C-alpha cells in the first residue's frame, strides 16, 4: 500500500488527544440545591486524572475515526497496481497541435512545438503516443503504431523531424471537429489494437493551442465524450500580451453601377487602451484614426470604377496576417438579350420591351445588354445573342428561321404570343396554332410547376401568390404543342407557359404578353424574379461570389482555398481572405471543456505555470489512486464509525461493568 500524500499520516498522532481526554476525570458538575449550607463542611474536590480508562469502546471508535481521517487525506493506493505500470500498461496520449492562422503570432508556434516535444520526451517508454496537427481538420503527423516499438529518444527524433516541416497555416480553428476526430483516432487504435501490447491504463488527449475566442467548439456540445479519455489543455499566449491587434474583415458588397462601396469591419483587441491605425486602399492611405481596444467599427472604401483587383489594408500592429482584405476584380456577367419584335419600343409604356428594359438594370455582377431587333435588321446579330425573346406583334420575316437555329444550337428563346399568328410554326414547330381566347373579365395564372428551374423562385411563399395578377387577354394553343411540358396554366385550364424542346435548346411559349393591354405581369413583384430566373437558366447567373475565405471550396472546382490573396480559376479570379473568427484572439478558458462534460486532467497546463513541475510518475500514481478510489471506502467506514460513536455516546454507554452502570442509574 502506497500513499500519494504520506505526510498526512503524521496526523494519525492525533489519537493521543482522545486518550488524554479519556484519562482526564471530569470534576462532578452536578448541582444539588439545599436549603442551607450552614451545617455542611466542604469536601476536597477529587483529582482530575485517573489511571484506569473508562468508556473504552468509545475511545476505540474515536481513535479509529482519527486514524481513518489521516488515511483518507494520505490518499492510499495499492502497490500492486504500481507493478502494472512497470509491466507496460502505460497511458495512451494523443498530442494535438493547433496550427491555425492565429498560431503564427509572435513565437507561439515555436513555443507550441517545444511543448509537444517536451511531452514526447517526458512520456514513459511504455506509454503509447501519437501526434496530430489541426486547423479546420485534424491531420495525423505521428501515429500510435509509428511510436509503438520506439524508445523515448527515437520518438523524439521522429516528432522533431515531422514537426520541423510544419508551419501555421491560414485556416480557421475548427477545434471541435479536430477533437471529435481525435476521439475516433483513439478508438480506432483501441479496436485495431496491437495484440502484443497490453491495453493502456488510461487515455489522454493533450491539446496545445492558443485557445483563441474564434476557435469553434460548438459541435462538442452535442458530442458524447468518452469518460475514460482525459483532456489536458495547454494554453499558449504571446509573450507580450499588451500589444494590440488590428483586424479587418469584409462585411458585404454593395452593388452599384457607378461605384462600389466596400464595407469592412475594423476590430481592435488586446490589452492596450487604444491603437493608431492607417487604412490603405491599394497602398494609398485613405483614412487614419485611433481604435479603442475591445471595440470594432465599420470602415468604408470607395473602389475605383474599374475591373481590377484591390486590397484594403490596415497598419498599426505587428501581426499582419489579418490586416489585409483582398478584393476580387469585378467580373460581371454580360448576357446579350436579343428581343425580336416588329413594333416594340423601349420608350413606349404599352410595349413589353419597355418593362423588360427596366427589369434588366445593370449591376456589378450582371450587366445585361438588351438588343432590340427589327425584322428589317441583319440576321448576323444573332451570333451575339446569349438568349432571345420573340414578341409576336407583327411579321418577323427571316429572323424566325434565325431564332429557330439559335434555339436548336442550344439557346433559350421565349416567345410571347400576340394577337395573330405570324408564322410562329417556324420557331415553335409544325402544326403550331393558336387563337384568341374569350376571357370574361380576367383570367388568373395557376398550377405553377415550381420544380422547373425557371419557376423555382416562386416556390418561396413570398412570391407564390399570383391571385393579384389579372390577365386581360390570352391565347389558346390549338396544336403543335403535343409533348410540350406545361409550366403554368390559366384558371380555365389552358396552358399559359409551355416548354418545347428544340434541338439542343428550348423554346418557352407564353400565351400572353406582359404589355399592360394583355396582362399585369410586368406590374407585379414576380416579374423581375421571372426575368432573372430565365436569364439564369440561359447561363447568366449573378449569384457566384468571388470573395472567399480560407477553407472554402473554389466554385466550380474541387479545390479548397488554402492561400490568401487572389486565385485564378479559368476565367474567374477569386479573392481569398482570412476567416474573421481567426482574428478573435482573446483566450478562452479551458474550463469550457469541463462544462461540456469532458474529463479534464487535474492540472491543466498554461503558458504561465507550465507542467514541468509534476513528474510523469506522479501523474501515473494519481491516475492509479483515482481509479482505485480507496479513500471513498475509507470515508464510508469513517461515517459508520462516527455514527456508531454518536449512538453509543447518546445511550450513555461507558464500557464498564453492567453492575456499575446499574448502580449509577439507581443513585
Amino acid at each position: 500500500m502506497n500513499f500519494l500524500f504520506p505526510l498526512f499520516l503524521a496526523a494519525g498522532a492525533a489519537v493521543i488527544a482522545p486518550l488524554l481526554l479519556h484519562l482526564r476525570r471530569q470534576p462532578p458538575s452536578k448541582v444539588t440545591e439545599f436549603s442551607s449550607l450552614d451545617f455542611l463542611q466542604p469536601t476536597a474536590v477529587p483529582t482530575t486524572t485517573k489511571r484506569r480508562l473508562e468508556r473504552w469502546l468509545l475511545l476505540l471508535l474515536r481513535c479509529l475515526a482519527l486514524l481513518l481521517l489521516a488515511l483518507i487525506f494520505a490518499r492510499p493506493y495499492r502497490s500492486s497496481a504500481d507493478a502494472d505500470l512497470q509491466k507496460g500498461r502505460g497511458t495512451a496520449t494523443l498530442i494535438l497541435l493547433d496550427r491555425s492562422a492565429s498560431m503564427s503570432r509572435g513565437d507561439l508556434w515555436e513555443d507550441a512545438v517545444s511543448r509537444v516535444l517536451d511531452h514526447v520526451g517526458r512520456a514513459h517508454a511504455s506509454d503509447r503516443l501519437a501526434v496530430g496537427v489541426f486547423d479546420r481538420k485534424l491531420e495525423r503527423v505521428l501515429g500510435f503504431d509509428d511510436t509503438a516499438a520506439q524508445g523515448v529518444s527515437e520518438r523524439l527524433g521522429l516528432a522533431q523531424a515531422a514537426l520541423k516541416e510544419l508551419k501555421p497555416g491560414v485556416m480557421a480553428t475548427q477545434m471541435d471537429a479536430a477533437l471529435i476526430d481525435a476521439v475516433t483516432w483513439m478508438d480506432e487504435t483501441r479496436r485495431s489494437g496491437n495484440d502484443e501490447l497490453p491495453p493502456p491504463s488510461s487515455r489522454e488527449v493533450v491539446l496545445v493551442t492558443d485557445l483563441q475566442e474564434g476557435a469553434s467548439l460548438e459541435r462538442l456540445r452535442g458530442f458524447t465524450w468518452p469518460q475514460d479519455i482525459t483532456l489536458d489543455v495547454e494554453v499558449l499566449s504571446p509573450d507580450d500580451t499588451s500589444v494590440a491587434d488590428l483586424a479587418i474583415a469584409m462585411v458585404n458588397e454593395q452593388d452599384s453601377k457607378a461605384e462600389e462601396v466596400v464595407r469592412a469591419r475594423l476590430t481592435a483587441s488586446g490589452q492596450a487602451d487604444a491603437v493608431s491605425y492607417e487604412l490603405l486602399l491599394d497602398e494609398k492611405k485613405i483614412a487614419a484614426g485611433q481604435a479603442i481596444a475591445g471595440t470594432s467599427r465599420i470602415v468604408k472604401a470607395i473602389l475605383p470604377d474599374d475591373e481590377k483587383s484591390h486590397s484594403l489594408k490596415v497598419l498599426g500592429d505587428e501581426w499582419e496576417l489579418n490586416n489585409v482584405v483582398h478584393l476580387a476584380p469585378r467580373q460581371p456577367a454580360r448576357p446579350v438579350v436579343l428581343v425580336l419584335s416588329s413594333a416594340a419600343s423601349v420608350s413606349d409604356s404599352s410595349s413589353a420591351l419597355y418593362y423588360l428594359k427596366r427589369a434588366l438594370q445593370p449591376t456589378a455582377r450582371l450587366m445585361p445588354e438588351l438588343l432590340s431587333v427589327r425584322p428589317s435588321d441583319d440576321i448576323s446579330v444573332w451570333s451575339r445573342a446569349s438568349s432571345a425573346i420573340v414578341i409576336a406583334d407583327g411579321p418577323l420575316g427571316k429572323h424566325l428561321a434565325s431564332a429557330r437555329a439559335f434555339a436548336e444550337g442550344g439557346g433559350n428563346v421565349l416567345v410571347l404570343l400576340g394577337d395573330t399568328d405570324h408564322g410562329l410554326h417556324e420557331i415553335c414547330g409544325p402544326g403550331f396554332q393558336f387563337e384568341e381566347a374569350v376571357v370574361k373579365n380576367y383570367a388568373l395564372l395557376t398550377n405553377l410547376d415550381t420544380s422547373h428551374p425557371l419557376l423555382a423562385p416562386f416556390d418561396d411563399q413570398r412570391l407564390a401568390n399570383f391571385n393579384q395578377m389579372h390577365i386581360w387577354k390570352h391565347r389558346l394553343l390549338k396544336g403543335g404543342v403535343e409533348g410540350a411540358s406545361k409550366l403554368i396554366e390559366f384558371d380555365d385550364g389552358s396552358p399559359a407557359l409551355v416548354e418545347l424542346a428544340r434541338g439542343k435548346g428550348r423554346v418557352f411559349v407564353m400565351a400572353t404578353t406582359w404589355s399592360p393591354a394583355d396582362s399585369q405581369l410586368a406590374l407585379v413583384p414576380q416579374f423581375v424574379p421571372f426575368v432573372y430566373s430565365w436569364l439564369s437558366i440561359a447561363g447568366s447567373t449573378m449569384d457566384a461570389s468571388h470573395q472567399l475565405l480560407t477553407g472554402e471550396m473554389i466554385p466550380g472546382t474541387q479545390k479548397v482555398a488554402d492561400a490568401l490573396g487572389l486565385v485564378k480559376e479559368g476565367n474567374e479570379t477569386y479573392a481569398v481572405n482570412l476567416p474573421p473568427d481567426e482574428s478573435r484572439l482573446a483566450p478562452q478558458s479551458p474550463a469550457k471543456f469541463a462544462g461540456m462534460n469532458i474529463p479534464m486532467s487535474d492540472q491543466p497546463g498554461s503558458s504561465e505555470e507550465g507542467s514541468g513541475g509534476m513528474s510523469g510518475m506522479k501523474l501515473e500514481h494519481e491516475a492509479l489512486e483515482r481509479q482505485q478510489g480507496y479513500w471513498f471506502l475509507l470515508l464510508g467506514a469513517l461515517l459508520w464509525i462516527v455514527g456508531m460513536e454518536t449512538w453509543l455516546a447518546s445511550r450513555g454507554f461507558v464500557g464498564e461493568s453492567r453492575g456499575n452502570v446499574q448502580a449509577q442509574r439507581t443513585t
Partner: protein
Amino acid sequence: MTFLDPAALMRIRSLELRARVVVEGLWRGLHRSPYHGFSVEFTEYRPYVKGDDPRHVDWKVAARTDRHYIKKYEDETNLRCQFLLDHSRSMQFGSMAGLRKSDYAATLVATLSYFLMQQGDAAGLSTFGQHLDEHIPPRNRPGHLRRLLVELEKPSAHATTALATSLASITDLLRKRGLVMLVSDLIAPVEHLESQLGLLAARGHDVVLFHIMDRAEVDFTFTEAAQFRSLEGGSQLFVDPAAARAGYLERHGAHLKKIRDVCNRHGIRYQAAITDVPLEKLLLDYLKETSGKSGLRVN
C-alpha cells in the same frame, strides 16, 4: 388509622380543599363528627353562676329545663390565633417531588385556620422573610378564611430569613393576647431567635413553634457527591455526602437541641413537623398532647 400521604395531599391544588380534607380526617381521628351535635348555639351556653348578669339568662331554657344557662358573648370566649409563616427561600426546599416545605407549611396553616374558624375562633396571618411581609389581624368574619388562603398561596419573594427582625415587628403589632403559632424551618442563629420568642411569651401570648423540616435535612439522605448550592444566597460548596454526613448530623442535632432548650426556657410548645409525616397525624399528636395547655380546644 390510615393517614393521607403528604405528597398525595399536595397534589390537591386548592389550598382550601386541602385544609378541609385534613380537618375531616382530623375529626375522624378525634372520633368526633363535625356534623352531629355540634352547633354554635350549644357551644355558646354555660351554666349560670352567682354574680352573672341575669339579663343574659336564657329564660326559655330555664322554663323548659328548670336550669339557668347564660348566653356567652363572642369576644369574651373566642380564641385569637396569629400564624407567623416563614416565606424565605429555604422553605422552597423539598427532597421529594412536589412536596416542598413551603407547601407543607401553607397546608398546615390553612388546616389550622379552617379548623379554628369552624369553631368560631379568630385566625390571623403574618408572613415574613427578610422583613415582615404581610400582616392580617385575627378575625372571624365571612370571607376572612378566603383572604388567609389567598395570602398563603402567594409565592415566596424573599432570598433569606431575618427571623429576629420580623418577630420584633410582629410582636409590636400583636396588642391582644392570644395564641401565636410560628411556622418556620428556623434556619437562623438561635441566639437572635431566643430574645424575640422570649418577648412574645413574656407578653402573655401562647407561643407554639412548628419547626418545618425535610427528611433530607434531618437525616442527610444524599448519596452522590455534588456541588451543593444554598437556596438562600446561592453560594456553592462541593460536598461528598459519605464524608460530610456525620458532621452535618452532629451540627444539625446541636441546632435542634438549642431550639428545644430555648422553647423549654420560655414555655414555648415545640412541634417538629417533618414533611413526610401526614398532616393529620402531626395535628392529632399535637392536639392530644396539648389539650388543655393552649387555647386550642377540641370539643
